[in-house]
């Protein structure tokens, strides 16, 4: 099940290209006896991957590992490569969405889908979803949540800035609502993709 790179997730101007390879042979040093080994690689546009990419990779990897049925492919490797094409804000949620669509397209078994939503709280206390880079810079706090498709619960959260508990819960609620739209988009695009084949 190799998915040749074709998944492009532009959100406004932010674009990410995702490719999923697997299940394939794994190096003995990396193999896990009862599960597949998931490798996430985030390639920035300029320069080599650095600490920031590693942090983002960890967020994406933990989310994917929670949703993939890794025990169905022991001693195999699943590789997910995310290439940043253009960053105009909400980059982590773009990575998450692209990752989920690539895994879906590759046909890897998952127990549920997930999506990423970014919220920003600006200086007035207003919540903005899917902020652009300019909006992110001027906001007081930026949070990204990974929401699952079955129970709409939060799988992963990554926040930056200061905010109150109430604001956090509000952002979570907003993200849960926004995630419904994203899942509908997933359904529509999968339907279109396979409409010609089926």
């Amino acid at each position, binding site marked *: 099940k*190799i998915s*040749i*790179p*074709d998944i*492009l997730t*532009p959100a*406004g*101007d932010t*674009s990410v*290209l995702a*490719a999923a*390879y697997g299940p*394939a*042979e794994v190096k003995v040093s990396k193999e896990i006896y009862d599960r597949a080994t998931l490798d996430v*690689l985030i*390639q920035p*546009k*300029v*320069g080599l991957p650095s600490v920031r990419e590693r942090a983002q990779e960890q967020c994406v990897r933990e989310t994917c590992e929670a949703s993939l049925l890794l025990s169905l492919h022991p001693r195999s*490797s699943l*590789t997910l*490569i995310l*290439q940043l*094409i*253009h960053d*105009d804000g909400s980059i982590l949620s773009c990575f998450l969405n692209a990752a989920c669509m690539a895994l879906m397209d590759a046909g890897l078994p998952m127990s549920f889908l997930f999506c990423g939503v970014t919220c920003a709280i600006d200086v007035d206390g207003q*919540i903005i*979803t899917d902020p652009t880079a300019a909006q992110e810079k001027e906001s007081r706090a930026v949070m990204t949540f990974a929401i699952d498709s079955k129970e709409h619960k939060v799988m992963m959260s990554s926040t930056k800035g200061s905010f109150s*508990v*109430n*604001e956090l*819960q*509000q952002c*979570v*609620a*907003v993200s849960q*609502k*926004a995630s419904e*739209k994203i899942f509908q*988009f997933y359904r*529509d*695009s999968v339907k*279109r*993709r396979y*409409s*010609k084949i089926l």
Partner: protein
Amino acid sequence: MKETLLSNCERDFLLQAIAEKKRLDGRQTYDYRKMKITFGTDYGCCFVDLGKTRVMAQVSCELVAPKESRPNEGIMFFNIELSPMASPTFEQGRQSELSVKLNRQLERCLRNSKCIDTESLCVVSGEKVWKIRVDVHVLNHDGNLMDVASIAAITALCHFRRPDVSIQGDEVTVVSPKEKWDERYPSSDHVFFLSFCRTYLLVDPCEREERVMDGLLMIAMNKHREICSIQSSGGIMLLKEQVMRCSKIASVKVSEITELLIKALENDKKARKEGGRCGFAESMPQERITALKFEETSVEMTDVAERASDVVQGAEAPPLMVPSPVVPVPGVGQVGLGLQNTWGLEEEDDDEEEEAEECANRGEEGEEKVTKMEVERHKKDASREGQFT
């Protein structure tokens, strides 16, 4: 991942077909695949597709101190990333032979041909020059990477805009970008890939054809029909006529590709002037069934505030774990009182205080952790004793 081997029958089929002047995708022996050049949102970002081979190039610049041997010249840096996305055989570490070969060839072609006038990159002689960095990412590998990479690099360089610089005394400030890139030397160098299978000559091999080829002749030529570099690799020996023929083919192709490049640049300039949205997202064909576009929609947020406050009230109060920090002595911070030392050794007061700071953030959990460690230690001792007796 290991490369899948090419079976013998596939190899024989390919060679036989080439002997009969037939190629896998029905092209003629000197035909190029369909090439498409598009640009990204930023200046200096371009995508080049040649059939299924896809490459993205991005140019960026920064002000640095120049090399000591050349204080008047700017610095150019090329980097081809063979992303694991391009082929499952590409690993993240860059040591592979192919990657080194591509990097060296690209550098040789573009640096030595002087397609960019490096002296124009100088801002303050001996102190500040522009360092131009070209990153080429290979997104999909279906043969002929060198060609596509060089076209992408050149196109990105043509497309790039260097920021304006104003110098006041010792200070150099960079003003927002929009200045036209100034290349003195017409830059359209194209590397041109020719592969040889036995005695047959193919232009623009796809991945399968690359696997069965015997040797490779690479010609880099600019639009003035001057050869910038030639490289011949593989075990073949070429006759003079063959080399001449190849260079003639190269000159024809170079002019075609240069035309395409200029047209693409003009289209992009026009689109930007009209203020339309340009970028990778826009360049993807929208009419294809696999493409889906979603307009900006607003999210309903009416009952969000009530939901949030419900959740907050329903949640338990956070445990009073961490007491506020205390400064007993200047230079010493202390949070909490720390725990009883469980090593069972005689220690001085200094150690206790050090430990107090270390145990600071653990609070209640610390106690459980410590007892667990103690239990484990006892278990370990017991088992060790069991082993050695």
